């Protein structure tokens, strides 16, 4: 193979036509300049319009185009092909562990269900002031590294614990959001939030494998957030024991 050809191997599956998924090879002239994997997909789709993938913002903030690129989860729109090409080859697969709807498009129902389960909204039943609730810059800084999540699912679908128990283990993305609300000084439901996470699966199925950290295209650290939740659960348990006397 000449060195100015790029070989793209892509996971293809159309439920109306294919009994089984298969890998299809595309040869394409190497672009003159470095382009993103999403641009590469656009080029391929111009030649074969049956290729299906999600995309929207094309700048890494909407979270649509999470996929598995040469074995690693990432966003196609902010992954330069130069960073992933191996021996003039790129392999594109859907995010692992979720049902495939078609080609690179996965069914994210389970992922969103876990997100909804952690009640991802501020809970504060006190009467709101006429203006904003005050929050110090220091308290606000506690939300940095948490609120920026774009729900792309790159982390949760790289997590073996999530692959095993997608229905019971909340998964790194939703746990990051769980901690975002636990850490918010304006939220008053800390106790209930912790109780809902205290079963053996929701949080404790995390074994610190850290795939989530290496997969996150926004450089967030779900593992650290999960650690924080675990220590909150622990000190909460101590408090419960203390107030109950015996347990």
């Amino acid at each position, binding site marked *: 193979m000449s060195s100015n050809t790029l070989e793209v191997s892509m996971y293809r599956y*159309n*439920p*109306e*036509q294919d009994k089984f998924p298969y890998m299809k090879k595309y040869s394409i002239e190497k672009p003159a300049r470095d382009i993103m994997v999403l641009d590469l997909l656009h080029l391929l*789709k*111009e030649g074969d*319009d*049956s290729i*299906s*993938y*999600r*995309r*929207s*913002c*094309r*700048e*890494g*903030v*909407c*979270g*649509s185009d999470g996929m598995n690129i040469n074995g690693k989860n990432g966003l196609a729109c*902010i992954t330069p092909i130069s960073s992933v090409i191996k021996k003039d080859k790129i392999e594109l697969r859907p995010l692992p562990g979720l049902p495939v*709807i*078609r*080609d690179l*498009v996965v*069914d*994210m129902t389970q992922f*969103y269900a876990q997100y*909804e389960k952690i*009640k*991802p*909204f*501020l809970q*504060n039943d006190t009467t*709101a002031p*006429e*203006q*904003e*609730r*005050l*929050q*110090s*810059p220091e308290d*606000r800084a506690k*939300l940095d590294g948490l*609120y*920026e999540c*774009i*729900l792309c699912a790159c982390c949760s679908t790289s997590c073996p614990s999530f692959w095993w128990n997608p229905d019971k283990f909340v998964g790194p993305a939703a746990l990051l959001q769980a901690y975002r*609300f636990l850490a*918010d000084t*304006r*939220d008053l439901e800390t106790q209930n939030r912790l109780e809902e996470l205290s079963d053996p699966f929701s949080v404790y199925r995390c074994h610190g494998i850290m795939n989530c950290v290496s997969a996150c295209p926004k450089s967030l650290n779900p593992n650290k957030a999960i650690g924080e939740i675990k220590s909150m659960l622990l000190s909460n348990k101590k408090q419960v024991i203390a107030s109950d006397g015996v347990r």
Partner: protein
Amino acid sequence: MNNSTLAKDIKTIEFDALIIGGGGSGMRTSLELAKSGLKTAVVSKVFPTRSHTVSAQGGITCAIGSADPDDDWRWHMYDTVKGADFIGDQDAIEYLCSEGPKAVFELEHMGLPFSRFENGRIYQRPFGGQSKDYGKGGQAARTCAAADRTGHALLHTLYQNNIKEGTNFLNEWFAVDIVKNSKNEVTGVIAFSIEYGELAYLKSQATVMATGGAGRIYASTTNALINTGDGLAMALRAGFPAQDMEMWQFHPTGIYGAGSLVTEGCRGEGGYLVNKDGERFMERYAPNVKDLAGRDVVARSMVLEILEGRGCGENKDHIFLKLDHLGADVLNAKLPGICELSKTFAHVDPIYEPIPVVPTCHYMMGGTPTNIHGQAFNRVNNIDSVVPGLFAAGEAACVSVHGANRLGGNSLLDLVVFGRATGMHIQQELKSGGGVESATKDDIEASLQRLNHLNESSSGYETAPVKKELQECMQNYFGVFRRGEFMEKGLKELDEIRDKVNNLHLKDKSNAFNTSRVEAIELQNLFEVAEATAIAAYSRNESRGAHARDDFPERDDDNWLCHSLYDPISKTISKRDVNFSPSQVEAFPPVVRTY
């Protein structure tokens, strides 16, 4: 769906209120309605947090009096009227600026993680066109921010609160066309599930077009790939007018080559533009506020620098945005997202090097004309009257608060203020017994026609090349500067493109996540918006706000202190009066606009 689908073959799903679009305006409308207990559904072609609101960076401009306790919504109103080059409706701008603080505080109460000042109040930064004391008191810091990810924070907060209130979401459903009854009232839309291809008539007493902009009519745009003007195009196809379509904002700082937005907040925090000589050229064009003049003014100045040979780079075809003097601490704390985007798409770290930027299509000031309650109107026999059942909000609508040029930070405010207002109005209307009569099978069939035509196609044009042709045509003939003779050429090209757009060949007829079908329909939508833009631009023989004519370089208040109203049936422009009747303040009369 089949190649040819009849009305009797599809199911009807009924709601009280239907919102097309799951961005900021759509989800603010749905939140209001879901709280009221009405059966509300949001139809979104992407999962809601993938909507383009997510890309908004710098902030939401509003006189909440945090940076300056003496700030006044009337000053914000003055700035907005002036920024709009005096064709923004002053009743609507008054509503935007006076109701704004309420809407922003509500967002904070919902949990939006605003950045904060030391005293715990919401952080506000300076933005272009914002002044104190009606332009006499210097630069105002009025733009409320969550770092440089305000749109992301806002959109996620709204989605989260919609989950809380139990809004129905039809995610990855694509609305195709409006359904009308015999009285020309809107009774819902035809839509299909992208995932399965299931086709349905979504019936509703109130249909809100909250489908955002259509920046993809241009080759170079900050807009997401999904910004294809679907709602506006549906309204145009249904025969309803569009207003001020010649008014497209070119944002001064799109990343050269990539188009990604670099927030005006960069200049608000102290960054500035330089030409190839390192000269801070905005000092010449806008001596008072320099880099924080209106976006139209800054964009035109940049293009002039490039045209006069003072552009940067090998081809002298861009400008540098200098930020390094702000220091790593400020950049990391206030503009972290920009540092990330710049490294990814421009391969420069703004801590050390300037970002190459170029004016890039950013925002559609025009849209479906509405009043402050979101009610769309139509003009029949020279009389404007409300279209029962049809509403619009956000970028898809033209209320009009942005007139000929939108100020930075005003779009997010527009979304929440008018999303909320639209929701409140629909609630009131439906609870007092308002609504529309049902459509017949024939009415529904009429709305299936376009989709059937596409599904039946066995030959014709491919979508991708036609889309490129359209985008190049708009970029070449209807960009930052416009001239009559060039636009005539552009209009001729558009005539040829229309024929192709009407005869697209959909090769892939499958039902499961068929993005080719979606993209073909989106191209047809883009075309409707592009044609309205071209005809409106060719008609307005003056320069005002974002609309700059080489051949008519002056503003002409005698003839053009008015909205343009595009009638999609006759494809002609008529004039519509601008509202100069705010209720709480005296109207601001037009004056020469300088910065």
